[in-house]
């Protein structure tokens, strides 16, 4: 059973460090999502596992066997390219048979197996069509079927849903997790779409600049981001910079730039006078009743919830997400004053990043 282990894997392309000493263990049957901004090294990591790129240093183990240097075709790990890379001169059925004939199947047996797999992805009647005759969603399913047909238990998906429209993406997402579960596959799925990662992953791996920032279950990463970047990239947060004014056990008091005082709980040792960044999820900010007075500047209606942008004195902005029920009940008028509160048990406090808050979240 495929268990994937990476040990101190590094890769440079010229002057760019794509991966910097990555250590990672992925369990058998686990659905992992590698999440990160463009250029964070996700695809390189996936290609190194697939054997399409060799690391400069470090080792890759699949199933306990060291596979560094083993050619791609020997790894029993199928890589699915984000444009699917369907072979344009072969029919759907021939595309799917490719991996089977490559593994020594007779043509007839390969074709039979291909039609079986085509049934799994519900494209039985398209066996003799050419890729260009299929819609984007169908092509995606053919590409998936082609991977599944090989019988490989390790599936490496590079932005598999990136080329689909929003509605289809949701549909295929469900399909993917169903198939992975049914066939007990180990899947490594690269994406830059956080909702995709949150909904699919057993384990989420957040990457940035060739390093792993945080790994854990989606809930862990969502509720306990370990850095400003984590809080920024997964979920939606308001970031507030300030100076630590008081430390009382776990309760830290922060004074914001405009003099506003907020409190947060933190296990880390903060000292008085230190710069810190507080991160609060937009949905955790309470509108109505609280110590902060703010003026409503902007309303974004998004269906199931709405985004309200408030302004504190001196231009400090806070965005709060409120559910639809609340939005219907109350009247929100632009320009009106509201009382806000930031619950201290839902506020996470981080040390000031070396490049400053803007450097941390704008360099993404």
């Amino acid at each position, binding site marked *: 059973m495929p268990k994937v282990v990476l040990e101190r894997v590094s890769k440079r392309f010229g002057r760019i460090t794509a991966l910097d000493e990555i250590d990672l263990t992925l369990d058998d049957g686990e659905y992992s999502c590698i999440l990160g901004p463009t250029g964070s090294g996700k695809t390189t990591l996936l*290609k190194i596992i*697939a*054997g*399409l790129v060799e690391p400069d240093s470090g080792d890759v183990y699949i199933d306990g066997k060291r596979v560094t240097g083993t*050619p*791609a*075709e*020997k*790894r*029993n*790990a*199928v*890589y*699915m*390219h984000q*444009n699917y*890379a*369907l*072979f*344009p*001169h*072969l029919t759907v059925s*021939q595309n799917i048979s*490719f*991996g089977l004939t*490559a*593994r020594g199947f007779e043509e007839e047996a390969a074709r039979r197996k291909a039609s079986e797999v085509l049934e799994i992805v519900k494209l039985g009647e398209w066996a003799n069509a050419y890729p260009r005759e299929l819609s984007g969603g169908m092509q995606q399913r053919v590409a998936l079927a*082609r*991977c599944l047909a*090989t019988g*490989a238990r390790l599936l*490496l998906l590079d932005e598999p849903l990136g080329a689909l429209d929003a509605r289809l993406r949701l549909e295929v997402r469900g399909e993917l997790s169903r198939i992975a579960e049914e066939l007990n596959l180990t899947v490594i799925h690269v994406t830059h779409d956080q909702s995709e990662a949150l909904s699919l992953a057993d384990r989420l791996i957040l990457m940035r600049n060739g390093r792993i920032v945080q790994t854990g279950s989606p809930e862990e990463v969502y509720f306990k981001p370990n850095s400003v970047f984590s809080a920024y990239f997964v979920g939606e947060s308001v970031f507030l910079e300030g100076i630590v004014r008081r430390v009382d056990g776990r309760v830290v008091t922060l004074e914001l730039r405009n003099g506003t005082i907020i409190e947060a709980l933190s296990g880390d040792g903060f000292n008085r006078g230190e710069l810190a960044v507080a991160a609060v999820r937009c949905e955790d900010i309470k509108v109505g009743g609280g110590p902060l007075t703010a003026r409503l500047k902007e309303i974004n209606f998004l269906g199931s919830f709405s985004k309200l942008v408030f302004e504190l004195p001196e231009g400090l902005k806070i965005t709060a997400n409120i559910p639809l029920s609340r939005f219907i009940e109350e009247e929100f008028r632009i320009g009106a004053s509201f009382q806000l509160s930031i619950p201290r048990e839902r506020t996470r406090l981080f040390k000031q990043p070396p490049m400053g808050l803007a450097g941390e979240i704008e360099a993404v």
Partner: protein
Amino acid sequence: MPAVEAEKTSRFRGIGRRVISRLDKLSEEKTVAYSLYLASIVFFLGIILLPSLLGILLKLDTAMNVVTNPELLNRSFSAVFSSIIMAGIVSALDVAAGLPLAWIIARKKYRWLNIVDSLVDFPLIVPTVILGYSTLLLWCEETPFSIIGFTGVSPGFITVLLLHFAFSYPVVVRILAGKLMDIEATYEAAARTLGACPFTTARTITIPMLKSGIIASLILSFARSLSETGATIMVAGSFENGPVFIKKSIDAGLVPPMVFVSLVLIVLSILILAGLRLFGFKFRMPFRKAYRIEAALSREGVTRVRDLSAIIIFLFLVLLPACFMVLARMPLMLSYGLLGEIFTLRGAWSTYWISVLNSYVIALLTTLINVVFSLPTAVIITRRKLGGLVSRLLEALSTTSIIMPSVALGVSLSLFWGASGISDFILVLLAHLCITYPYMVATMVSVLEDIPVELEEAGRTLGGTPFKVFRSIVLPIAKYSFLSGVILTFTRSVNETGATLAVSKTFKTVSVLLVEWVKSPDMRVEAGAGTLVLMFLSIILLVIFRYIYTKGGGGLA
């Protein structure tokens, strides 16, 4: 199918399958891949590059004889100058006249276009020397068909120009039409709906996108004009360019002028071609505005005149010379009953058929060897297997022999290999390898560049070995451009004369034989008949190629 035969076929299949699976196994080994790369580089350096240059470079000291002789020096420089001027004019005319025809082929949808499309390749299967003789007959001599040609021209600058135009034009049209087809019509549609007339669209959108094709065309026709020897001598009259001068001095037994002129030509043309590559890509046509005259030029009447003149130029200046010799000799051939005699294998015709066999054996070997060695080279170049520097260097160097006058190349090779005492057959083979290698590498590089890397990657992670991926993905997708490379190499080899003559006096290919016949007054009608047969053979062979290739490609996948 009888049982025995079926068994035989299946046994064949079995062997074939075992060979393929063996190759599959082999291709998995990294050492195999790297030894292939190494072998192809060794082949390139040891068989192609160094022998073509070293033969000349070893005699470098003798070049001083030319420098110290003012009269010889003068003649040498004027020959080089003529070559460069001629090549410049020819390549400019080629692009100017080739672009409209390429445009018609790529963009219009007339039914008769298919015929024009296939006729464009026709001059390629006529040996260049025959084209030369044909040019002479058409423009300079009294024939039963003189009415078609203009008989008042005397051999010289104009006839050389007409000849060079005729043999380089088909390749230029091919390149430009191919590139034009790659440029999606959506860009033109966008420009048109934004309000640009067809001519403005062509000037500001399509032609700038076509730049790489235009530069490639200029380089190729320039190099071809610079290096062609056999036919040029035939139509040169008193005109003397580099290759003519070299041939004359070799015939007079003089090596130093050949060394000197070859070197100057090589150095100059490397500079010119490098300049073309460098500045050609940087050059941008000013956009300015849509000129009023462009709207006028886009009018239907005007475009019709343009299309018509493009086709007339092709018919009269390219196609007619290509088949004129056969045409002009036809009445005599028929009255002598020559066409029946050809197949009797008697007298001169036995020599003829042997030379045909020679040519085809050489061409086949040349093509095979070049495919085997230029493919890994192309992989190194396009996939940067040995780093970017090696890629760039290899790509630049691999085109060097394209600019060498074929006679000079031949002499250099015989100087290099001469002492080793290898047979004339091998010498001719080596010469043909050198001459066709650049074409083959260039074709393979463009083939590989057009195939998205992700298709190969997909094939690999699905479990395909490198060899399996190559034969069932890369080859089928690229098969037409691959085929055209093979055909180009094969026909170039069959039609080559300059270098073949220079390396061997005894081993005769059919083109060399035809040159001899054309030169001797009492064999000229036979030369016509021989050319006719050769043309037929070439057409049949091309059809067979295409058949085997499409069949074979399907079976292998």
